[in-house]
């Protein structure tokens, strides 16, 4: 049995359906992420799980028992708020002790567990500090520790890294993974940052306009997106209009106005005549100088339109003779490779038939 189950949850705000018939099952010990652009309903779902909001239809079950009618203070789950919501009039130790005091834990036990938790988040020396004396990253860790200290069945995290700068974010991502694996508590994480979701999660549900578009592991989401929205939302991708013109056990043959005939293998789940998009990740595209021999299934001649050097990689935009723009990503694995091509250089690009996927449009 799943630890947390959402059954056909719907939530309306006036005429707006913020969450539309969402069903989910989250297993114990999982790091589960709700990912989507702002306004997609992910935070509404989190608030319904926490009990601050109630679904108009459907049910939420924890350990098989409905949470309907159970107020937030009686639910065995805690939330880490986007603003941290640390109590400003309590010290770090006071903040950590709060949930234990609410649970009626004895004084000696509270002192022991607060000490333990402070050590776990490396804040032993900050026990007597007040929240306004802490840095953003430290506040974040206190909020996390406060959510974990009473060992909830489930920890809900509402964009907890949103307020941190990029470098600290990366550091906290590492901390989050370490903490979650160490304490073994199930995390339900809400974010709009796809990289964060990919880096942290066991499974991700990608949401759009109140619906779940795809729920899968990061690897599957990235390599086998269910539709254009997911493909486009997660990472960079080339999307080219195409139509299925032949299906064989080895693969599908597509026709595109700008790329001509294309081979995709293995054959995607589609029917002859389906229209949709050929989706190709930039890092699967190879670039070669004209005259260099390349053994690839698809090959096109083009010119470098722009080169975006970001250090470890360079992102090229290549204009094909048909006018189609293709993005290609090269890893700068040796000094000579960076800025190998400049804008205007003629190049040959290509990819293997396994490199791309076909995403047929929903009818």
């Amino acid at each position: 049995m799943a630890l947390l189950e959402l059954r056909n949850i719907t939530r309306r705000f006036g005429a707006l359906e913020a969450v539309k018939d969402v069903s989910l099952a989250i297993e114990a010990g999982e790091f589960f992420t709700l990912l989507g652009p702002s306004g997609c309903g992910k935070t509404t779902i989190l608030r319904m799980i926490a009990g601050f909001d109630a679904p108009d239809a459907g049910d939420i079950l924890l350990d098989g028992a409905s949470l309907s009618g159970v107020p937030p203070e009686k639910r065995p789950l805690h939330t880490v708020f986007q603003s941290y919501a640390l109590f400003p009039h309590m010290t770090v130790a006071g903040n950590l002790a709060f949930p234990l005091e609410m649970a009626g834990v004895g004084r000696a036990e509270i002192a022991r567990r607060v000490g333990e938790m402070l050590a776990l988040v490396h804040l032993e020396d900050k026990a007597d500090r007040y929240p306004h004396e802490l840095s953003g990253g430290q506040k974040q860790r206190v909020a996390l520790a406060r959510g974990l200290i009473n060992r909830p069945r489930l920890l809900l995290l509402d964009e907890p890294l949103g307020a941190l700068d990029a470098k600290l974010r990366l550091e906290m991502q590492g901390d989050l993974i370490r903490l979650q694996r160490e304490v073994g508590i199930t995390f339900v994480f809400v974010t709009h940052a796809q990289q964060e979701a990919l880096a942290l999660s066991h499974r991700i549900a990608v949401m759009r306009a109140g619906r779940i578009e795809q729920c899968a592991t990061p690897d599957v989401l990235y390599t086998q997106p269910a539709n254009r929205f997911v493909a486009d939302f997660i990472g960079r991708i080339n999307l080219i209009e195409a139509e299925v013109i032949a299906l064989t056990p080895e693969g599908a043959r597509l026709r595109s106005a700008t790329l001509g005939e294309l081979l995709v293998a293995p054959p995607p789940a589609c029917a002859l005549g389906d229209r949709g998009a050929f989706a190709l990740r930039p890092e699967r595209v190879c670039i070669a100088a004209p005259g260099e021999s390349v053994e690839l299934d698809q090959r096109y001649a083009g010119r470098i339109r722009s080169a975006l050097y970001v250090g470890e990689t360079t992102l090229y935009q290549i204009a094909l003779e048909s006018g189609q723009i293709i993005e290609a990503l090269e890893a700068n694995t040796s000094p000579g490779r960076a800025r190998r091509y400049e804008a205007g250089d003629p190049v040959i690009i290509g990819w293997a038939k396994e490199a791309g996927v076909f995403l047929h449009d929903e009818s």
Partner: protein
Amino acid sequence: MTKAERAMRWFVTLPPAAFLLVFFLAPALIVVVASFREPGEFGGLAPFTQPTVEAYAFLLGDLVYAEIFARSFFVATLTTLICLALAYPLAWLIAQSPKKRRDLLVLLVILPFASNFLVRIYAWIILLGPLNLLYTPIAVVLGMVYVHLPFMILPLYANLEKHDAALLEAAQDLGASAWTRFWRVTFPLSLPGIFSGSALVFIPVLGMFAVPELLGGTGDILIGNLIKEQFLDNRDWPLGSALSILLTVLVLALAGVAAWAARRGIKGAEALT
């Protein structure tokens, strides 16, 4: 700080500083000096010969004055507590109401100031007369509470309005009942508002003479009446001055203790204000 900035700083602060020096500090010093002199035959002060502590000796020698001081502090404390009990829920309700309605509600709180203070007290005479409460200590406290209630509501509202709703949600999420949420989160964070509201009520009540004079009986005389009497009726300026100094010293001492307690009690709350 550049030279121009420094000049600007002087330019801006000099007028109010000069005003306070001339019209606040100087009269206060005159009162101090007057309290160490002898009364003139027909009011005012006698020609200066040498400083005397006669006025203070007279004050401390008669228990009546101690009793009036004690009564005044009791009335001020009671008024403050009643104002707090009435103002807190009201301020909370205003802070909770939709943003658009808050300004209107605050306006209603200060609306009584639009009519004259004495007119409003006379209205109370008309109200309290038929209830057989006029000229009683209860009438005095009622009047005091009525006059000072807005001074408690406004600072409390200003404080409660700034509270982050996420803190209450966090407390609830972590297992706190409504009662616990109030006492562990809302109340401690509102202490700065409680302190400033209490100061704004307590101190003026101590000096107020119109309310006890109009609504109270002969036995309800407070320090304010006593001081007024010395200057206007008894023409004993040194005694009136000594009473004023004593009152000021006591209030300052109390404010000092309160500030010290506040600093200890609400260390974290400073992040809020």
